[in-house]
């Protein structure tokens, strides 16, 4: 199926990749737009822009209510390779929609986070690698379905529906306290997040 507009199947309009969480270095000459590396013998995590993906294809947005950026690259898809415990590389390659027509989601962070597939399907998360030493940590997650990202005190949602504009593809769901407060008020989605995070507030016996 082509990425060309099809009114009966708008989900396939623009297979894109959404990268959120950290600034990307689009001007890097070797094409490494994000790198997580601490020192020798630690895993190196790399995100590459292949020659078919030019810097002007990265649309930069800010997650509403935060100063965190996210990027949308239309007509792109990821390929990846993992080299034992040493390296994880993700390559952004052009995508004409013929073999891969879904949006993919990435979160890159300078700190540990927990990705939760919104569908509860663990196989939606293709890569979730981190490299850390002492208190310094880099982590990268690649998912083929919508994910919640629990990062620091905050929970973000990466989810795009072709009916929405890309600018709202990554949202701040709330702080951990807000999520718990909503879950305790009966919000099913927040309860799911808490269950996935194994957070279960104690109660009077």
């Amino acid at each position: 199926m082509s990425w060309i507009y099809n009114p009966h199947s708008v989900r396939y309009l623009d297979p894109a990749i959404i990268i959120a969480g950290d600034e990307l270095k689009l001007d890097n000459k070797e094409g490494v737009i994000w790198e997580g590396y601490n020192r020798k013998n630690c895993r190196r995590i790399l995100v590459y822009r292949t020659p078919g993906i030019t810097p002007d294809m990265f649309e930069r947005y800010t997650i509403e209510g935060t100063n965190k950026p996210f990027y949308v690259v239309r007509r792109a898809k990821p390929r990846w390779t993992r080299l034992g415990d040493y390296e994880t590389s993700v390559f952004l390659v052009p995508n004409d929609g013929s073999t891969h027509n879904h949006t993919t989601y990435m979160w890159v962070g300078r700190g540990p986070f927990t990705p939760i597939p919104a569908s509860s399907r663990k196989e939606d998360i293709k890569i979730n690698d981190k490299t850390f030493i002492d208190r310094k940590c880099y982590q990268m997650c690649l998912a083929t379905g919508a994910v919640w990202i629990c990062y620091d005190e905050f929970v973000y949602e990466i989810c795009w529906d072709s009916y929405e504009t890309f600018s709202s593809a990554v949202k701040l769901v709330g702080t951990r306290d807000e999520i718990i407060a909503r879950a305790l008020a009966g919000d099913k989605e927040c309860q799911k997040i808490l269950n996935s995070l194994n957070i279960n507030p104690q109660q009077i016996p």
Partner: protein
Amino acid sequence: MLYIIGEYLNFKDRILLWAACNGATRRVLKLLRAANIPDERFVQYKIDGCDMPAYRLENATVRWLDTSHRETSVFITGTETPEPHTVYIVLNGDQGFRTIPYPSNPSSVHIHRTSSGSRACSAMAVVSAPAFVERLNYDGSPRDYFYIAKDAPYYLGSRNAVIAKAFADDTVCRQLMQQAGWDIGTL
């Protein structure tokens, strides 16, 4: 019934009602409410004899998270049926407090956490009634006492006031005197 005593609550925030932390490396104490608990549910309550703030909520209970990364969060949540037990959330952002169990309710304290700094010691506890609360001074000496009963909180006054009332045959003060183990000299 749920009572919150000790500190004024901040209703400007949707969720966070009270928080205390006495230093960057100290425990953060938070009192929060579930998203469906509106301001109107908090009824201010006057404790006779003192100006300590108190609030009362019907059909509410508490849940709490006590995380290893130095954070304790107590959440007020709604219940569909009236709670059979009276529960108190005791807060103090000044010098903290101790709880003294009531003879018939020895394990009344569900959680009691403090955030000690160089000049202050904030504290928060979830306590089932009945019990006694002893507020502390800067040097850790007792300041005054409260009886948190099943029906309401009562102010008992300073240690000497409690002893005087106990000698006047006040049952509650006698209980407190016994439980606290005060050494009263006699001829």
